């Protein structure tokens, strides 16, 4: 449904997205997971036609976004990262506006507005001005505006940023409901829990490039059954050889990271290799997307 072919986007000399390729099928949620500035929004904006890719092609429902924009955009829904609604109008007026922008009208539009309001749990506030909403409610409305026309392809750019757990639950449930209805969803986030919960497949992006791609299980298996151990303290005078048998990810003067099988059982042995008081903090993470990201980039997902 959504097909991206070797997409690159440059801003002058700076490459914000480089050689991005993936496909999202109908009824599938595809995640783009990456830290701030990874190029997630750049990719989404190239897909929605907001940005013109420097290289590459994007197809929505087999229509090229650049070549046949109207046909391509008809099947597309977009939830932009920044709110794009009228704060000085109420939810009904906003939904009416966005519904018409996607060619809905009359009774059909009114019915969809009712359904969508219910889906995001805003029925009781529908007639209040958006400026009186909480941040999470605005995000829910921002989302609702994109799904009125039942798009076959839906782009969600970090829809849950700054949203309380209740609003987030509403949103994630709504996205899952769309998936079961056959919508192809592209979901960007830097919350790996969300990616793990929602996404059938995902791509991890960093510095504009896809550094890993697959199902959550496939990606996890890249780590093997290993856990991620992070030690903090002063390691400036220590020789890396003390943990030679482990898979070293990062060695810095104030922190080191490495992978170890069954870390909990080995931890006291590992700590004994350092001098007393040298290690100030110890963290052990089970294999997850976050540790995969750290393994691949040497950095944490949230910086």
């Amino acid at each position, binding site marked *: 449904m959504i097909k991206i072919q070797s997409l690159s986007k440059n801003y002058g000399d700076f490459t914000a997205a480089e050689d991005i390729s993936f496909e999202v099928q109908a009824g599938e949620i595809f995640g783009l997971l990456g830290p701030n500035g990874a190029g997630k929004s750049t990719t989404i904006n190239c897909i929605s036609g907001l940005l013109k890719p420097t290289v590459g092609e994007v197809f929505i429902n087999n229509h090229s976004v650049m070549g046949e924009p109207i046909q391509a*955009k008809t099947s597309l829904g977009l939830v*932009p990262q920044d709110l*794009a609604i009228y704060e000085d109008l109420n939810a009904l007026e906003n939904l009416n506006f966005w519904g*018409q*922008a*996607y*060619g809905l009208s009359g009774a059909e539009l009114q019915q969809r507005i009712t359904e969508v309001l219910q889906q995001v749990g805003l029925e009781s506030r529908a007639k209040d001005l958006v400026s009186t909403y909480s941040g999470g409610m605005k995000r829910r409305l921002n989302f609702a505006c994109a799904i009125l026309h039942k798009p076959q392809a839906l782009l969600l750019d970090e829809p849950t940023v700054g949203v309380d757990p209740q609003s987030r639950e509403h949103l994630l449930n709504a996205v899952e409901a769309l998936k079961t209805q056959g919508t192809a969803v592209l979901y960007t986030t830097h919350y790996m829990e969300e990616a793990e919960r929602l996404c059938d497949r995902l791509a991890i992006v960093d510095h504009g490039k896809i550094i890993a791609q697959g199902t959550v299980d496939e990606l996890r298996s890249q780590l093997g059954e290993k856990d991620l151990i992070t030690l903090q303290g002063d390691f400036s005078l220590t020789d890396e050889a003390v943990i030679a048998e482990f898979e070293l990810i990062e060695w810095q003067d104030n922190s080191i990271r490495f992978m170890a099988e069954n870390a909990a059982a080995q931890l006291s042995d590992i700590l004994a290799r350092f001098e007393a008081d040298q290690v100030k903090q110890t963290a052990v993470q089970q294999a997850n997307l976050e540790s995969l990201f750290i393994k691949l980039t040497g950095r944490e997902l949230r910086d």
Partner: protein
Amino acid sequence: MARSKMSFTVASLRIKRVIRERWGLISWLAIPMIIVFLMSLLAGTGSGKLTGRLLVTDLDDSMVSQFITGGFAQGPLAEIFTTKQVSLDEGKRLMDAGEASAWITIDNGFGEAFLSNEPTDLKLVKNPAQRILPQLVETSMQLLVDAATYIQIVFEKEFNVLKPMLEQQKFNDADLVALTLGIKQQIENLEETIFPPQLKVVEKAVEEVVEDGDGIPLTFGLLMFPGAIFMALIFAGNSLAIAIWDDAKNGVIPRLSAAPSGLNDYFNGQVFGAVAIFTLIVSVLGVLGAWYFALPWAKMPVVILWLVFSGLVIYLLFVTLALMMPSMKVANIIVNATTFPLLMLGGSFFPMESMPDWLAAIGNFLPNGFLLTGLKDWLIRGEGMVVAMTVPLVLGLAMLLVLWLFDRQLIKKLIHKV
């Protein structure tokens, strides 16, 4: 169908937002009214009647010169002008200070030359900052001179008796009595035929300048009133143009560009919305003005149409300027910086009639200026509609078309500026 519906929705949302926001609309309506009121007060009387001050330096101090100067101190002209006798120095000082509308100097020997039927002339100095009043003085003087000439012809015989007496400063009582009786006789003979029409000529001429064919009294307030509506349109156009940047900033325009029924419908909707808001403003102010200044109601539909059309030209001009700028901040600065010259030179603060000619000429190059002049020439000065309005209409329509096409392209570029 769905597309025009979308434009309609965009327009109605714009109107709703303007009405809900309330203060913008109130200020668009109120500021022009307050300014007309204040400027009318400054210009003279509360009712905004045209008044001026006329300086007279009579170096001749003859019967003829008194006839000329006296003409301004009597009848309908006296209601408009306060006449002040001044010396040459005082007259020059007051004119330089801009404290009078016009200054008439009658040179020594004027009366004598006049009576001898020699070429005579009067000196008139006009205040360059005013247009109507000095014009009025000039026209009236012309008429008075004509009247004097008329008298000269009628009383030629008597003048010929009078002249040697004046020359020799020797007044023969008997001759003087005979002359006076002769003049009295002539006047009595001619009273019914000459003087009423003679006076009528003066009166009618004055009325011709003061009133147009439809009998609208020409007051400062009336001269300002169409310009004041333009002021409301300029303020409204300014805000509505910047409001497009708001929609770019709040993400609506970028998001719309990802929708199939996108920016063209949005832009047309903005234009329709602006037209509706202008219609509202123009109707309210137009009806108030028509009632206050007793304008003919039959002209109101054309007045309203013309003003809405003018508002649209101004709006698209602002939109173009705003959309060409790299950021909302710069757009704001530029649009505001353009607003004030438009108001000042285009006849909204000061009627162009009261501007120096060269400034008024600049004002007439501004779109609001020529659109306003076209309207006033027809509405207030009684020129024919075709003569007064065709050129501004064609220019305005051409601007509308070009700007509209241009803005449709510019708005697409806005996405990359936010």
